[in-house]
């Protein structure tokens, strides 16, 4: 029987392309904002070109994201369901503030029906359906500054557009930091990264050695182990 994949290829391709492009945009964006004569690594002109190209590509990948969500069914993981807010958010926050330290089981382990915990879902919704569109729209607007209104909300020129673009990008950068950190909360530090790379929970199962870093995660209650169990059950059925 064909092995079931935890994350389909398109999703992993989108995710890692997104990650690479966002890092490029972050570096070039910071370089432009804090531009100084002779500042490394690329220089202002190259920063602009690379930032623009990466921005266009990232917008394209957002199209893939929307297609995957609305045409391929991945959007169901983003739907807020009963219990997500109350008690979901509280349980998840309590887990991150205490349970994760004392080895409590993950309150919302991965499964084919639920890939995001309530807090994760809320953040992803805000990031992908609010902040990212704002970033993309303002970014594209800055491609055509001559077509923008002379003043926006009383702020003349492109100032407001640039300001919103810059600081929305900053907020998304902070999200990325937390996102990467929470990627280490699998059964081992690298388990969730491998899972996202290979897409198969079986291959993502940790070897005994890294599990020792966080012994409590080696239990069958850990998030991905639970997912792996689901996958194995489906294989056996």
């Amino acid at each position, binding site marked *: 029987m064909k092995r079931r994949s935890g994350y389909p290829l398109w999703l992993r391709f989108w995710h890692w392309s997104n990650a690479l492009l966002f890092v490029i945009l972050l570096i070039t964006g910071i370089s432009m904002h804090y*531009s100084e004569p002779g500042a490394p690594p690329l220089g202002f002109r190259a920063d*602009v070109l690379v930032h623009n190209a990466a921005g266009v590509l990232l917008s394209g990948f957002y199209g893939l994201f929307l297609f995957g969500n609305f045409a391929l069914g991945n959007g169901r993981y983003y739907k807020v369901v009963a219990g997500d807010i109350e008690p979901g958010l509280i349980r998840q926050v309590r887990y991150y503030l205490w349970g994760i*330290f004392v080895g409590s089981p993950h309150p919302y382990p991965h499964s084919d029906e639920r890939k995001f915990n309530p807090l994760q879902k809320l953040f992803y919704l805000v990031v992908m359906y609010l902040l990212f569109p704002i970033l993309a729209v303002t970014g594209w607007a800055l491609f055509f500054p001559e077509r923008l209104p002379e003043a926006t909300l009383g702020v003349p020129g492109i100032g407001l557009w640039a300001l919103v673009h810059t600081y929305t990008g900053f907020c998304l950068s902070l999200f990325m930091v937390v996102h990467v950190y929470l990627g280490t909360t699998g059964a081992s530090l690298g388990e969730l990264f491998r899972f996202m790379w290979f897409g198969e929970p079986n291959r993502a199962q940790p070897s005994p050695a890294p599990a020792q870093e966080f012994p409590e995660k080696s239990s069958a209650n850990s998030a991905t182990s639970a997912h792996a169990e689901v996958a194995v059950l489906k294989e056996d059925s």
Partner: protein
Amino acid sequence: MRASAIALLLASIGSMPQVAAQTSPPEPACMECHKPSETTIDPVAFAKSVHGGLDCSACHTDGVSKFPHASNPAAMPDCSGCHSGSPSPGIDFDKIVAGVKASVHVKLVDPAFRCENCHSPHTFIPASQMTNAAAAILVFNQSCLNCHAAGDTAAAQKLAFSALAEKHRLFPHWELHIQANACVECHTPRGQQGLHLILPKSQALRNCATCHAKNSLLVTKLYTHLALKERAENGWLNAVLFNNAYLTGATRNRWLDWGTFAMAGLTLLLVGAHGAGRWLFAYFRSRS
């Protein structure tokens, strides 16, 4: 002369004309004849100008006592007859004259290049009296465009401007770049005193970060007085320079920048503390 619409940048900054311009002086007698014609002097613009308090005869000293006039512009007294030395801090007319003599205008165009080739004494308002950088740029650039995008008709001028703009394609949004910046900002050396030393085009500034930076070149050029005033009042760095534009790398707000540093630092601190806590708890649980 075609340079009739051009403001004199620095060459005639002086206290006396500024005061005179603010007190709505009586119209010179010459205006009785010259007012109706669009080809001569705009009395409103002249009254607002830094020379608005002067009588025409202050400059037009020769050949105007008879009609028709025999005035020869080339024989008119040079501006340096009144404007010399260093009448106020930061202004040194001797350096300005030296700059003009070293510029391509004198070396390549006309050894007898005169101030009024670029600066109309009839409309000039000094940069220090301009509070809107965008409007000032239009005035400044018009003095260049009068020759460098010259045309007998509006269509011809537009065509000449397009050809000139094409030469600036190295910039992203090159049309906006040349509309939103004074030509002299890139075509002269750094520093306010160099504004009249027009360089050969091969030496024009091409490093984007010269302007797109915290200490933007633009701050050291025409609008130093605006930048210092605005910075002292509300902490916005360079913002007033671009009150109709946003300049990446230069339009920074120190409070926003510090806020982002603080938020990024706090995020990294919390993430680091959380990770360290996980490691410590796991370590002690594994030993117990």
